[in-house]
């Protein structure tokens, strides 16, 4: 990766801008709500119940959060496996988004776990390991978060190398050399682990099978989830590249995004077609005539609409259309996950769930923290593609 370092540069500029302060305020409010939860139990801040033991913390912060963190995975597959080097400038910011998505998902898990203090036993007590799909998710997410830290570390070492002290400079140079030598297997891990745990996130909802609506209960759920996270990844990379370019005055990557979105469009349409075919072949089309049918059609339809927009070469080369289609695609992708984990989960007629205000404040706090750290990091470390040539003197 470091042979491409010339293209990356820190954005610089003042950190404590007004939007940044607002993000910090949300983070602080979320932290206060989380502190209250640790003192008084999960029930004190949330509407989670014995019928709905998992709510927005798991469905949004973890299940959707890690999928949003799959930008690095989706672009990594293109660049390193399909050898599409032209997308390389997208990799580093995508990996940063991934690291933040996964790092904060881990934080959300700690808030959600009732007995979080025993979490350290999960990777250590190998002799107690079960064949639970959730164990696979837990171990893989932890490992992948570490891999993302390693994948991100060249940005830090490049910054150190540019520093003054000769000792740190030598250390940074050595570290970069070691990373360069070992990158192919670190990258391979970085592609293997998401394949494993994103599919397992689908497997996880097979265990509550009898409580999951038949439209979502299919043994193909693992495959649907792993391709779904690639779709979400493409959408997130598009939005992140576009908004970064706008916010930080960086060169737009419109042409690169156009061809990326062309791939994404076919993946999305393929996913939607497969989803419908699986439901049809298992004879479940009758379930479409219900509220659940609307939720199903929404998650499939949004992807088809996004794909249809992007199939036109004229439309997908316009930034406004790219953003619109990516947002629709993101929404459709997210909806499949929220549907599977919350909407399609039916514990019984006398249970209901809607998130409580402090519960949502914790989720908002986590999202705000994610965006705030992203801004802080791209301003100080070489993540984004360098400024247009006219500014470099």
């Amino acid at each position, binding site marked *: 990766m470091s042979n491409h370092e010339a293209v990356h540069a820190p954005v610089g500029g003042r950190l404590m801008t007004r939007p940044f302060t607002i993000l910090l305020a949300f983070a602080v409010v979320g932290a206060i709500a989380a502190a209250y939860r640790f003192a008084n139990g999960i029930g004190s801040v949330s509407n989670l119940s014995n019928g709905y033991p998992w709510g927005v913390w798991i469905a949004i912060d973890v299940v959707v959060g890690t999928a949003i963190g799959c930008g690095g995975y989706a672009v990594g597959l293109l660049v390193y496996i399909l050898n599409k080097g032209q997308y390389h400038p997208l990799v580093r910011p995508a990996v940063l988004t991934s690291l933040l998505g996964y790092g904060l998902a881990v934080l959300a898990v700690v808030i959600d776990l009732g007995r979080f203090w025993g979490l350290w036993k999960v990777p250590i007590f190998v002799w107690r390991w079960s064949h639970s799909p959730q164990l696979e998710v837990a171990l893989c997410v932890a490992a992948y978060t570490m891999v993302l830290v390693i994948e991100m570390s060249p940005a830090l070492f490049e910054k150190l190398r540019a520093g003054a002290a000769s000792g740190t400079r030598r250390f940074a140079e050595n570290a970069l050399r070691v990373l360069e030598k070992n990158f192919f297997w670190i990258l391979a891990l970085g592609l293997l682990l998401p394949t494993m745990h994103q599919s397992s996130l689908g497997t996880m909802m097979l265990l509550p099978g009898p409580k999951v609506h038949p439209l979502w209960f299919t043994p193909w759920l693992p495959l649907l989830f*792993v391709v779904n996270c690639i779709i979400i990844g493409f959408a997130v990379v598009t939005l992140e590249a576009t908004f970064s370019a706008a916010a930080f005055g960086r060169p737009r990557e419109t042409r690169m995004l156009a061809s990326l979105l062309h791939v994404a469009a076919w993946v999305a349409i393929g996913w939607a077609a497969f989803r419908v075919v699986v439901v049809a072949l298992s004879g479940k089309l009758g379930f479409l005539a219900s509220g659940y049918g609307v939720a199903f059609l929404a998650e499939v339809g949004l992807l088809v609409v996004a794909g249809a927009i992007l199939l036109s070469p004229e439309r997908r080369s316009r930034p406004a259309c790219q953003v619109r289609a990516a947002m629709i695609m993101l929404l459709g992708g997210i909806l499949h996950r929220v549907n599977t984990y919350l909407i399609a989960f039916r514990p019984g007629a006398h249970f209901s769930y809607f998130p409580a205000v402090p519960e949502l404040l914790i989720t908002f706090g986590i999202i705000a923290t994610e965006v705030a750290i992203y801004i802080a990091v791209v301003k100080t470390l070489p993540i984004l593609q360098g400024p247009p040539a006219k500014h470099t003197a």
Partner: protein
Amino acid sequence: MALDRRSFIKSVAVGGVAAAGAALPAAASERPVAPEGALGMLYDATLCIGCKTCVVACKQANDRQPDPGPWGEEHLYDAPLDLNENTKNIIKLYREGDTYSYMKQQCMHCVDPACAAACMLHSLQKDPVTGIVGYDPQYCVGCRYCQMSCPYNVTKFEFSKALPLIVKCELCRHRVKDAAVKGPDGFTRYPGGQGQACCEVCPRGAVISGRRDELLAEAKRRIAAAPGKYFEDRVFGETDGGGTQVLYLSRVPFEDLGLPKLGPEGVPRTAYAVQEGIYYKIPFAAPIGLFAVLAGVIYRNKRAEQVAGAEGGAKR
């Protein structure tokens, strides 16, 4: 563009390689059976008079706090509406027109328990001798995946506590522990008679405790003695959801009593078939193989790039 279509096909192939073969071996998974000495209970809803003595006895035997009920008057009521963190056993009433039936709800001690399949460190575990699904908080991280997975909504969690536990009926295994005698045949029995508190106090013998095979025989005897009396002339739990160690007889349909309609397949079988198919059938072959392929492709691509660079033909 042909290139993009190929990319798409490849992306799907690479991304789903581990998961793709998963749905196929579903039929190959074996069906667990109850251990020979499996303990259980038989609840005959036609005998229950709804006195709820069992609810009180269960609370005493398991050190559970009174439940203030919907009024929240802690000093006056013990009125749980449903199973909860203070209530491991409850009596409910189904009523429609002239038909009514009581319903006793507690852990079913599934032959193939989904909660134990969900548990990462075997904090919930099925005893190999008694078949009791017991809870050991030492390894519990409070993830509540067991609650998600239980098809009977039995597993409960102390949402109101900072240091919470999972709460569920453990078939009074703490009461029978000291009275347990391991027979020469290797099975544990309870000659002292200290069984489940709910069975001990039931004035009508509506719920009785014993070995699962004996209880099943008894239930079938009752059905044979009065054909047509019981719903579908069958015992709930013989095969439902892979079988349970708590068995039910009822005059009204089991679904009316809140028992889910489950096939003969164990509830965790679909998830297990996928998970075992990917990871354990040939241990870790899929992830290791996929890793080797990924690393190989990345290495090859990088070499090709370097060679191209050395020839001075960097096209990008």
